[in-house]
């Protein structure tokens, strides 16, 4: 519990820094006023709006004003939707979340057996195939894979719907697209982690007890091998969310990724800021969760404090 509190405290400077980075990035985008007003607006109108938005204050004042609002949950208005930016972002969150979780599940379903198998059958043909495919999985750009999946599985064979959201079937193709790169990374990780564990002394002990190889692998090796994988995979959350930007656009999945791409293109910076913030918090939360899982999986840590 104390650990948990202290990690949360640690998050604060990170969030501050992120807000800082994002704020200044966004301010660099140039004059938001020109995008908010019609092209025909007069200079006076521009100036008025600028004044009312506080854009004439020194930048640090603007930052503090902004932060004061953010702390109260106010990330500004989206000028594209004329709504509080945070509402728009939160509205999309469930869709992205669903997609991220299901691709993680798909990745796990692929990667865990593949990683274990290729570690056990190290240097065999099967290992070569698995390692090779995982490299391939990494090498394929997301959008390309997505389009190919649509062309083959949706258009050619009509197994899954092409795009959109609503049913579980809609979730399959985007999840595979997003999950592939993660699965590739995970397979490689599990393989090497597993190899290391399999060479450790307690595995030798387990074998010397006369345990079946399946028990040795699934009980003694797997849990130890997964411990580092959990943490490293948590670091992939950011990559995963990054992947949604592209995958959601390809599959017109109504999540934060698509929103972000369009918000950036439209310079709807309030939304960009809010979304970046939410994403950062999500990533941090997932790292925390991973840490807790890690603690759960590894008794050595649990008892230390």
């Amino acid at each position, binding site marked *: 519990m104390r650990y948990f509190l202290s990690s949360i405290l640690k998050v604060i400077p990170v969030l501050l820094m*992120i807000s800082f*980075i994002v704020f200044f990035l966004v301010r660099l985008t140039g004059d938001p006023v020109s995008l908010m007003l019609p092209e025909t607006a007069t200079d006076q109108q521009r100036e008025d709006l600028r004044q009312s938005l506080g854009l004439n204050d020194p930048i640090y004042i603007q930052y503090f004003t902004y932060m004061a609002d953010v702390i109260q949950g106010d990330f500004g208005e989206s000028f594209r939707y004329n709504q509080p930016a945070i509402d728009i972002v939160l509205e999309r969150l469930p869709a992205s979340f669903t997609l991220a979780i299901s691709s993680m599940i798909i990745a796990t379903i692929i990667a865990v057996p593949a990683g274990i198998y290729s570690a056990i059958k190290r240097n065999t043909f099967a290992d070569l195939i698995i390692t090779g495919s995982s490299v391939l999985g990494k090498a*394929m750009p*997301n*959008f390309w894979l997505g389009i190919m999946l649509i062309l083959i599985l949706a258009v050619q064979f009509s197994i899954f719907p092409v795009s959109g959201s609503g049913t579980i079937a809609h979730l399959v193709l985007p999840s595979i697209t997003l999950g592939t790169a993660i699965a590739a990374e995970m397979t490689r990780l599990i393989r090497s982690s597993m190899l290391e564990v399999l060479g450790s002394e307690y595995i030798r002990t387990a074998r010397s007890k006369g345990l079946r190889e399946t028990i040795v692998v699934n009980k003694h090796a797997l849990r130890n091998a997964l411990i580092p994988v959990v943490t490293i995979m948590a670091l992939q959350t*950011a990559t995963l969310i990054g992947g949604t*930007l*592209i995958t959601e*656009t390809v599959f017109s999945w109504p999540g934060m990724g698509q929103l972000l791409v369009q918000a950036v293109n439209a310079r709807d910076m309030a939304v960009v800021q809010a979304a970046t913030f939410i*994403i950062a918090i999500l990533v941090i939360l997932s790292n925390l969760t991973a840490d807790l899982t890690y603690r759960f999986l590894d008794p050595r840590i649990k008892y230390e404090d």
Partner: protein
Amino acid sequence: MNANTQVEQNMDVKPHHKEQSRVSKVFKQLWKSKTGTVGLVIVLCVILMAVFADIIAPYDHTETNVSARLLPPFWMEGGSFNYILGTDNLGRDVLSRIIIGSKVSLLVGIASVIVAGAIGLFLGLVSGYYGKWIDQVIMRLVDSFLAIPNILFMLIILAVIGPSLTSIIIVLGVTTWVIYARMVRSETLSIKERDYVKSARAIGASDYRIIKKYILPNVVSSFIVIATLNVATTIILESSLSFLGLGIQSPDVSWGLMLSDGRDYLATSWWVATFPGLAITITVLGIIFLGDWLRDMLDPKTKS
């Protein structure tokens, strides 16, 4: 006669290696690792292709020929040997574009890794070696960067400053340094506690000397491995940027741009996107193989 002197004379049990044989040993090892060899060959080919791109390419990459639009590769009906891998929607030679695109793709990959590596190496060393508040600040910075997906970061910055070759390289570098900083820091932390660093301090070596002669050379091998692998990641990232319209801009050409432009033709003129895609895949494959082999080579744990 003293027993010790006896011992001294007969110490040399290991055969003497000459420098030359070390080099040849590396190659022998390389040859033995089949994937490593494949990787090296691929990477060398791509580099050669990039260096001599303007000489090898049969056409200029911007040369359009509207009467020869979307010709298939030579082995297909309608294809010709003039355009071995076919032409794209403006009648430009796909092969030439791939060859010339390799320049930009590799340049983006390598240069941005150098930018990121330099930042990461510096901050990682400082953070790991000096610790204390510097470490805290740098690590929080690292956390912040880790919490924002790379591609989002790039999207925002590039939207702001506009995509160009230089800005793409810098942005890729500025957003991916974190990996190196983390790695270098953790290596530095562990090396700092090794006995050989203690012994260097015991002979009175300065911090600068310790970083330069003790820590740097010992992080460099992991660093090279990660950097190599990241060239691959960067090449893929660049293609994603192209998909979002913020990658390399015409008339320059990169594989990512070709792949992204060609995606509209996947169903009808597959060769427009497939060949640059293959180029990316093969190169990435080569780099990863090479990187994995380097890892095995340079990692003392697996070496002995």
